[in-house]
């Protein structure tokens, strides 16, 4: 995988950019200061800069933002918060309390990623306007790896603008979906304001693709089967870091492990089908052991050389191998007993080969067994999408069972899922047309722009057919030496977004692709380089608004190999179906 990866640009520069920006904000409050950070921002700040950097810019103590204010120690406190009511109320309460005992303390509030207008209004209402100094910190894309960028935040416009500023104007653009189109509009508006010199720079990125998550909800709903995807589903990967629980690390405390291509073992297994991972690990472990065993027959000179050079690497390898083997084991043991049935049900629904009556019955049983809500809804949503929507009557039947098992309050959750088109119900008089209101929790997580999703209640199956997402059942897909993108789902389904990008990169774009995209919700915008100007290098940037799964990332990595293109994938965040669903929950 190394060949296309080394092509061209350095994404690490993005981290430096964000880090510099953070430093500038900190220096706006010169001198010693205490930092009080919104818990939801910690992971992201971690990825941008270390504690050392913060300390070198005057940060003395760091606290997590909680209801009660931490002790006042230095003359300045800097709050880093999201524009969200609860953290802001906390901050306001802190300031009021601290004012009584420490009238001299200076307070700065850094709002991430945007200092939106109502935040200022809120502070004004609290009587704090002018009493605190307001700042804004907008992080750029954060490189999680050479080929994976994440915003961990929802402010796309400036982030993509920065990319164009750094790497030159991207000649080929394909954007699909309403939000995607808006991003392009905003980009162009911003680009035109920028210095025109930048635009003359030779582009380092040849292709830009922008998609909404709603182009393909089926992919996140399916159970992931690549190692990285499985890790994310079981332990959760946040900003490129997994926290392995105690039984995996074999210590008393859970351990945070960064997952990226710098770890060669991980780089080799992350995209493999889970079924093949432990075999690979065992083979490698044997090799390492054999090498270590050789040491016993070495001469003293050889031995000295070995200890000086190889031993450390081998030991590190052994530790990593052991860790991942243990992770595999833990995952395998925690697989539900009916995992095979579940997988069979999912794939049967997607390919249309399965008996949907049987699937319905299976889902009803899962609901009656009170499996986790996200698990149940994930399967239910998959059913409704692949059936091109269920009838209102059937919806009432399913939903009442869900509500009995998980609480009537989730009527609200189901309503939101329907508004988003993840739960597809045909002929539903009770969900109003257009983007109706109240999708707050999801919007916090999604890009603000993705909130306006078109209604979808039908047409998935024809879309899958037009885009050829369901592979021919007679052609076996090699799961362990994959050549086909659908290997990420056992050859049952090809994730739509990588498929479309692949078609475009392999010259199967043009009119037929445009026609095919019409079946997906939203409109398509395409720009091509003007005649005579360079088409740009074979480097593609794919942006997915509203969350990207590791199954898709794996498909993109395979696509990068087969199409000899360096593909950099960027998203608001990496996600799983469970996360997608639970982001709609109220509590």
């Amino acid at each position, binding site marked *: 995988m190394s060949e296309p990866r080394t092509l061209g640009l350095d994404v690490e520069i993005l981290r430096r950019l964000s880090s510099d920006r953070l430093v500038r904000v900190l220096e706006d409050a010169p001198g010693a200061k205490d930092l009080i950070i919104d818990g939801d921002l910690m992971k992201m700040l971690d990825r941008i800069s270390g504690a050392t950097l913060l300390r070198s810019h005057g940060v003395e103590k760091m606290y997590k933002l909680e209801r009660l204010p931490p002790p006042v120690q230095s003359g300045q406190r800097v709050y880093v918060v999201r524009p*969200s*009511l609860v953290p802001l109320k906390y901050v306001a309460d802190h300031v009021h309390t601290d004012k009584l005992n420490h009238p001299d303390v200076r307070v700065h509030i850094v709002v991430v990623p945007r200092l*939106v*207008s*109502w935040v200022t*209004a*809120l502070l004004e209402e609290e009587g704090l306007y002018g009493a605190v100094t307001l700042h804004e910190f*907008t992080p750029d894309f954060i490189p999680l790896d050479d080929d994976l960028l994440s915003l961990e935040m929802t402010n796309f416009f400036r982030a993509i603008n920065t990319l164009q500023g750094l790497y030159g104007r991207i000649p080929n653009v394909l954007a699909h979906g*309403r939000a995607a*189109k*808006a*991003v392009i*509009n*905003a980009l*162009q*508006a*911003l680009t*035109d*304001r920028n*210095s*025109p010199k930048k635009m003359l720079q030779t582009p380092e990125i040849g292709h830009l693709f922008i998609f909404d998550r709603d182009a393909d909800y089926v992919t996140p709903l399916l159970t992931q089967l690549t190692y990285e995807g499985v890790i994310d589903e079981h332990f959760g990967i946040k900003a490129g870091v997994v926290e392995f629980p105690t039984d995996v690390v074999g210590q008393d405390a859970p351990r945070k492990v960064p997952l990226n291509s710098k770890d060669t073992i991980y780089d080799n297994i992350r995209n493999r089908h889970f079924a093949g991972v432990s075999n690979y690990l065992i083979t490698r472990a044997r090799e390492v052991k054999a090498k270590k065993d050789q040491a016993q027959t070495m001469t003293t000179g050889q031995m000295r050389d070995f200890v000086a050079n190889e031993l450390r690497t081998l030991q590190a390898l052994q530790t990593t191998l052991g860790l991942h083997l243990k992770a595999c084991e833990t995952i395998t043991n925690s697989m539900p*007993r*009916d995992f095979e049935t579940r997988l069979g049900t999912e794939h049967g629904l997607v390919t249309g080969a399965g008996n949907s009556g049987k699937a319905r019955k*299976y889902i*009803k*049983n899962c*609901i*009656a*067994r*009170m499996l986790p809500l996200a698990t149940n809804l994930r399967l239910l949503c998959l059913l409704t999408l692949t059936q091109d929507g269920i009838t209102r009557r059937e919806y009432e039947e399913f939903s*009442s*069972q869900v*509500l*009995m*098992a*998980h*609480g*009537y*309050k989730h*009527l*609200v959750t189901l*309503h939101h899922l329907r508004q988003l088109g993840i739960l597809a119900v045909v002929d539903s*008089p*009770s*969900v*109003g047309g*257009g*983007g*109706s*209101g*109240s*999708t*707050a929790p999801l*919007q916090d997580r999604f890009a*603000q*722009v993705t*909130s*306006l999703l078109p209604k979808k209640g039908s047409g998935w199956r024809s879309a899958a057919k037009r885009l050829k997402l369901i592979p021919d059942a007679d052609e076996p897909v090699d799961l362990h030496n994959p050549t086909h993108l659908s290997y990420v789902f056992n050859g049952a389904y090809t994730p739509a977004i990588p498929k479309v990008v692949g078609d475009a990169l392999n010259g199967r774009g043009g009119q037929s692709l445009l026609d095919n995209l019409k079946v997906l919700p939203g409109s398509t*915008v395409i720009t091509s380089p003007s005649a005579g100007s360079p088409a740009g290098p074979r480097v593609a940037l794919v942006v997915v608004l509203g969350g990207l799964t590791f199954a898709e990332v794996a498909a993109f990595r395979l696509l990068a190999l087969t199409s000899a293109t360096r593909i950099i994938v960027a998203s608001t965040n990496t996600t799983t179906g469970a996360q997608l669903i639970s982001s709609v929950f*109220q509590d």
Partner: protein
Amino acid sequence: MSRAENEAYWGSTDTAPSALDNFFDEDSNVSWTGYAGGYLSQSSKTAPCNGSGNAVSHGGQPVPSCTSITDNITIHSVTDRAVVDIPGTGNNSEKLSKGVGKAIGEKLDSWKPPSVSIKWNSSQGQGNGYCVQCSAKDNEISQLKKRLENSYSRYNLTLPPDDTVTRILLGQPYSLECYRSHEDKLALLDAALNTMDGSAILATVLHMKNTVKKSLFIKEMQERPHATQLYVTYLKKRHNYAEAIDFLRLLGKPDDAAILAYEFALTSRAPEVKVKNMRKTLDNSFTDPNLSYEAKIVKENIKLLERQMAIDETDHNDLTNPMLTKYPRAANIVDKSLLTTLYYCCMYHWDSVESHAGSPMALRKAHSFTDHQVLWTILRGRARVNHWPLPNELDSWLGSKGLLGALGSITSAFSGAGKAISTLKSTLPIEQVVHTLSASGAPANVLAVYLALIDSIDTRLKLAMNYKCHQGVIDAYISQKDRDALEKYMHEIPAGSPEYLKAENALKSAKWKN
């Protein structure tokens, strides 16, 4: 206008943004004449200035300073267009930049439009007394003059909406106060909507909301679903539910309003208040016939919550129920789901009479469970207290409602446990039941009974082996008539145990194929 011209105008394009920044800066020394003039005449372009321009030339008196302004205007509006205009939204920005003047800032206080009044006074003087038409023109001119002068007031000078929106987008200071005409507000809102930027849209929506009457606001929002959505999200973020519900209702979205009202009713902590709020919500928000299903759910919620409060009331101080002491309650049952409540009742009130608040049978009759929900929950709830009911014990739980239930109980009276077993088989995936039972520590004899319900003998055998349920294995071999296998399996069974005896018996008496 070409880039070069633009640069000539500004000196260099690169300084343009910084000049914009300085616009808000008291101490900066940017010359405003050209700039403000540009916008000024842009506003005049709509109606007033074009008209006045004509009138002036009629009078035969060239007005150099006005033309120079006009020149600037054209130049400037083009400049503006070049910056703002983007493919795709071209039409829009053209529409928007029409009729919009420019600018805020203290600078304008010191800057007076010196030439206008003098000029027009003189033209007035010339025209006087010559013709009737002229006096009409004069009237018009004096009106236009007033309007033009008014437009110099800094509150009335407005940036083109696209510019203001871009400023919001870029995080630069901006002011919306100057957008006072309804058209301007709409143009501003639509410019924000074009960018899809949440902050910009919300700022413009709130500006409109604060400055126009409610009905007008609703009317405009009806045509802009995305703005509506962001506004509702904002109200919810600020915990201003009442306003959001009212807004959605006025907007003609009774379903969204109802769901939000329900959500709001649930935000109160105390269950009594919750019930009260839900009742109120039912009366106020769920009257639409399209919402009958949703209304039913809310009613169920109330019913359940009331029962849960009653259960908690009795169990709270109950020292007579041995189960409560043996298995201390992990949590209050109030606000748990219906199935969790059934689970709880199966744990603690399995033997309670039906009149008891916690009777599982009473609960089962009060709500319309499906059979598999009941069966799964009973199995899991009873297993929690180390009781594993056999299939025939579940008989009374199935279909005990209505005619069908009555018919069912008659049949079952004739056929013993037959109905329960067949219902169980058709309702639950028995394999999964066996997994669940075994995981909860069910004894082998119970497992064997459930294993016997599995149709496929191979599966039955596999599971029995897996869970070391000797009885199940023996039964399977007997029905397979496989003597050899059973004889071999005898080694696994402890000699003298009841299973061992049974197997021995079977070897003697049963019919075998080998």
